[in-house]
């Protein structure tokens, strides 16, 4: 991982912290600067491939201060470098600006994060549930949602032999 990129981000974005673990560079960016950081990385540092957007719920995590951590995995398709961009958002209104204006592939990734964690992506063109049914109300991957659900999975009419 080149230190140039991380240095550049440190200079340009105020309040970010850089760390490294097992050879993977991670940059934690303040929530309001995430779009600026993504634009910088895409347009000036050559990180043109958005690998994935995901989220972690730090509800029961030891020493965690923030509720949700958003993770942007980026890669440079020419030099094969990778960088992990992270930011934290909190209740009651977890919201970040969308990245769909930079990458069209971000559309579904953000919808999935919205579906599973209820994080609002401001400016997203089509922020609907993607995996769960529309009428589902909870956010299943949040840590306070039980694994077996709250009975939604068996809330259906029963068809017997005589009914058909």
């Amino acid at each position, binding site marked *: 991982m080149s230190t140039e990129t991380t240095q550049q981000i440190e200079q340009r974005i105020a309040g970010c912290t850089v760390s490294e673990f097992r050879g993977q560079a991670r940059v934690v960016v303040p929530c309001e600067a995430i779009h600026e950081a993504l634009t910088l990385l895409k347009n000036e540092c050559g990180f043109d491939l958005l690998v*994935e957007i995901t989220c972690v719920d730090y509800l029961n995590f030891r020493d965690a201060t923030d509720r949700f951590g958003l993770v942007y995995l980026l890669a440079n*398709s020419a030099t094969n470098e990778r960088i992990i961009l992270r930011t934290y958002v909190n209740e009651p209104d977890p919201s970040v600006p969308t990245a769909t204006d930079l990458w069209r592939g971000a559309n579904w990734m953000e919808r999935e994060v919205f579906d*599973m964690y209820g994080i609002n992506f401001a400016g997203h063109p089509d922020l609907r549930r993607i995996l769960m049914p529309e009428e589902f109300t909870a956010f299943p991957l949040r840590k306070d949602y039980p694994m077996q659900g709250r009975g939604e999975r068996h809330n259906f009419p029963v068809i017997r032999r005589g009914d058909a």
Partner: protein
Amino acid sequence: MTLTLSEINEQRAQQSDYLWTLNFGPQHPATHTTLRLVLQLDGERVVDATPDIGYLHSGFEKLGEHLDYNQYVTITDRMNYISPAANGVAWHHAVENLMDIEITPRCQYIRVICAELCRISDHLLSCGAMGLDTGAFTFFLYAFYQRELIYDIFESLSGQRFHPGYTRVGGLFHDLTDVTIEKIRAFVRGFPKVHGELEKLLNRNRIYVDRTKGVAVLTKEEAINFSATGPIARASGVTRDLRKDEPYLCYADFDFQVPCMKTGDCYARYYVRMREMLESLKIVEQALENLPAGPINVGEDERTALPDKHAVYQSIEGTITHFELVMNNRGFEVPQEEVYGAIESPNGELGFYIVGDGSDVAYRAHCRPPSFIHFAIFPHLIRGHTLSDVVAVLGSLNIIAAELDR
């Protein structure tokens, strides 16, 4: 820009009331799996498509937060179920990255053999199903017979023909036996001839070429912008292949090519897959010939790999080690950190983002599913093509619902 269904309805309700809506799926023979498309048609031409997914969402990632690092391999197997062992390789690649375990050379080679056999079987099914949808049933039957041979290999390798669940943290469930090696050798010997026949069936088949060439073109820039990876990106001229670019396991030891094409249409995606099978076969052959001797698991003192079953039942040390590893909070030493590990799965970059919290269960196990990202491209690809192209495009993208919805 993708329009939502409501926006489409709003915009077009007044001006183009001749458009009609076709519901495609979720239970349809050509989707092969469970996905739904709402197509806006102008006669036979597709004006827009709105995919609707989630019909097989089963909470894989939630399960990952409740099963330990060894148990979760049973779940990852069921993720991309036409190349199960490759998912296990990806998962344990990421886990070993998190725990900083260096696996033994023999284990690396065997994992490569598994992953490449999976690639062949995945491509056989995806090309076969694409042939099936475009009217080439013979190809499907030929391809499926070869898949049965690969199933046989996995059956003698692990005991289960479909979901081997073969990898473990720091090693493998079992070493290769002579029977398995003989079966792989026989497959490597016999497959090129069948592959040649398969190519003869479709490569210059007039109907097939007419239905796939020039259909649903994805340019290189679009491929990168849509985060496409794997054969789909390589058919559009992106040369990225993690096996070459970030050599994991022992891929640096092998001599193989990465097939790429520039046209980016359905035919290119099919052809890249066909060529990749031969390259995978080359890797399997080389790996088998140069298979290093030695143990398959890392040393017992590192407290990561489960001991051999024989040792568990016959010696007190083995029993103790086994119990230490399977008991809650006594097993693995996991840092409280986050890590991403990815491999080149048959469908593209398959990665896991794992958050460890010190216990033997992942705090968060996120999967980067290639099918999900590729299916997002579908509306863009199909716009302007005819209804009959829908199945060809779906087949060429190789969407696996269990990986799509997880």
